[in-house]
């Protein structure tokens, strides 16, 4: 009865908005939801019974649909990396994309800010809408789109500039600040929101590359939110970090959820369970299953999902 591991204990149905109050099992902070707890009890009884297909965005504290992908396929040259993926991503929610290596989850992530445009011979078909607008339309400038859809990468990649200049990079190129004072305010606010201000306030002008790995990753998150994006894409943001730095980033992700639509690619099932409200499972370039995180982890509809999350492959 593996799924009991992920089950919230009775009487601890705290809101997921408060991570410290979330149910803990096996040292993991588990997100919980009223509805999820209900379903989990059913799941415990019949773990492999096909659950009723949940409506998009239903269940859990999810907002309105922010990004709507329909039949998205990606080709690198002749090789198809993604097959007809249709997925709705709700606003003010953390959506986790999980799956084994090479399953297309990072590729899908990169379609949402058109980063695949920078790869030669990459081709995207299908339709991706953000707030009802096709982002692949000719009228959409990818440069401006990327200002609305920020991205954090696997390896911390601060620019070889000072901490201040790293955060001020986006506001400068997009002309968000008209004066030095305004820019200072943006930098300070972004660093505070990224939880880094306390640690770097006295050395804003020392190189960003001199920070520790976890600090660098929070710096690039601060850099991403300095341009006030609507969506933040995170491509395995913790895979190069130690557990303590990972915990800080996860805490930060949970705080940022209040303001942004967050999509995170992760290899860690525990991380997906801890930080996300919605989970999508990819395998061999196809979207296998999507739903509320609790559902995916306690009551997956697909055999492959079950095998993956229980560690039978991948």
């Amino acid at each position: 009865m593996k799924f009991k591991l992920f089950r919230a204990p009775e009487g601890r149905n705290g809101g997921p908005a408060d991570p410290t109050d979330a149910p803990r099992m096996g040292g993991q902070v588990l997100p919980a939801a009223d509805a999820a707890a209900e379903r989990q009890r059913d799941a415990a009884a019949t773990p492999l019974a096909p659950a009723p297909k949940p409506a998009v965005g239903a269940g859990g504290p999810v907002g309105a649909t922010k990004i709507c992908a329909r039949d998205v396929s990606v080709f690198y040259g002749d090789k198809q990396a993604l097959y007809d993926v249709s997925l709705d991503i709700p606003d003010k929610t953390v959506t986790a994309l999980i799956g084994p290596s090479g399953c297309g989850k990072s590729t899908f992530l990169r379609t949402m800010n058109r980063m695949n445009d920078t790869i030669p011979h990459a081709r995207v078909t299908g339709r991706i809408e953000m707030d009802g607008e096709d982002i692949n339309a000719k009228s959409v400038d990818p440069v401006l789109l990327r200002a609305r859809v920020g991205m954090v990468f696997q390896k911390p990649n601060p620019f070889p500039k000072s901490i201040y200049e790293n955060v001020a990079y986006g506001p400068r190129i997009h002309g968000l600040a008209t004066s030095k004072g305004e820019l200072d305010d943006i930098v300070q606010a972004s660093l505070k929101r990224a939880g880094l201000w306390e640690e770097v306030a006295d050395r804003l002008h020392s190189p960003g590359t001199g920070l520790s790995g976890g600090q660098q990753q929070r710096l690039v998150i601060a850099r991403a939110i300095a341009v006030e994006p609507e969506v933040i894409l995170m491509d395995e943001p913790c895979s190069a970090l130690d557990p303590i730095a990972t915990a800080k980033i996860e805490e930060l992700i949970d705080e940022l959820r209040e303001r942004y639509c967050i999509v995170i690619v992760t290899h860690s099932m525990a991380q997906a369970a801890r930080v996300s409200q919605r989970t999508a499972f990819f395998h061999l370039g196809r979207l296998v299953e999507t739903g509320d995180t609790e559902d995916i982890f306690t009551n997956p509809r697909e055999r492959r999902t079950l095998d993956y999350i229980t560690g039978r492959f991948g």
Partner: protein
Amino acid sequence: MTWLFLPILIAAAVAAFLGGRALARRRSSGLRAHSRPGQHGALALIWTAAPALAVLLAAAVFAPGLEQQLMASGAPEAVQELEPFRRQAFYADAGAVGAGRPAAQIWPAPYAELLPAEGRRAARIDLMLSLGGWVAALLAAALGALYVFSRIRPDLRARNRVEGWIVGALFACSAVAVLTTIGIVASLVFDSTRFFASVPITEFLFGTQWSPQTAIRADQVGSTGAFGALPLFAGTFLIMLIAMTVAAPVGLFSAIYLSEYAGPAFRATVKPVLEILAGVPTVVYGFFAALTVGPAMRGFFNGVGALLAGGPLDPVGQYLMLVQNQMALVAGGVMGIMLIPFVSSLSDDIINAVPQSLRDGSYAMGATKSETVSRVLLPAALPGVAGAMLLAMSRAIGETMIVTMAAGLAARLTLNPLDTVTTVTVQIVTLLTGDQEFDSPKTLAAFGLGLTLFVVTLLLNIIAQRIVITYRQQYD
């Protein structure tokens, strides 16, 4: 003569290898030997060949001197009385006659008769010396082989010993490079001190008159010569500046285009072409400058001058009409073209070394390509690019052929690119071609110039390395 001996030595070495291997097999049969028989064989080969080679090398180095001494000690009275260099020539001719070749010059009365006898004596000495060398080498090989064969036992660590010899050989090769450089610098310093003994170093470095052609007789005009090298430094600097003005932006921007914008097909075509361009001999650039660019530039400026003459800019026009083929602009410009592939290739490597994650980070922030290049890539690559520029500068300063053909010889203290200037390298070439007398400051001045050139380029290279090391970003 020594070369005849080499096959014998090779045969001996091979025999030692085979013998050592067989001996090791026999002595260690049934035992657990430390090394395999082949390694014992290799050790035997080394111990046979190395002493013999050392003896042969010593013989090759010391035989000529010994031969001279033997010839001199037994020479007839008449030869002893000759001037030193004539005596040398006589011994050389005796050696030639002894070896069956004709003498290089016709000798007057007493020497012509002495020559055949002396030739026979020279041949005898020569034979004696080479036979002695061979015997000594064979003896050394035999002793070495004896030593190693007596040592072959199952517990001999032949494998580690061979390893030690290999390390020694590799070290010797790297030492040759370093020692040669030290030797060159030492000779440069030695001859420079002789030059600076006759010309004060301050006059050399800060004097503004350069006219090294000392007259033959003391009462002639310009009998002392003037060795103020400032005009040469100014000319070198001016041409380097012009070359870098051409090469730095063009090379850097073409590198940026190639690494960031160009498609794979274009890149695959242009990169090899640039590399070919880097391989064009400088003398080809030199006659391109002297025969094509120079006359074209003169024609252009003379034409402009003719247009301006008589007008309000009459003095400028008059000046332009007198511009010559040889000017700093031509030499510097062509040198700049020569340096473009150098700068571009180095910068391209450096820009490509900037991690892709920085580009991705910048694009993901909504930056355009040129914003990414100017705000992220170039700052990240700056130390490397600065190093590349300094290396290009040091090449421009040391470049000789283009300036020799296109810059001219007039040592003029000017920063006018249309003037004829001369450079340090050109002056070294003119000082050391043709007749040389190593007791006059005229020839020795070349060593002073060479030392200055060496010091400047060395400093540039050290600074370039320092910049790269100090500002290198820790990406990994």
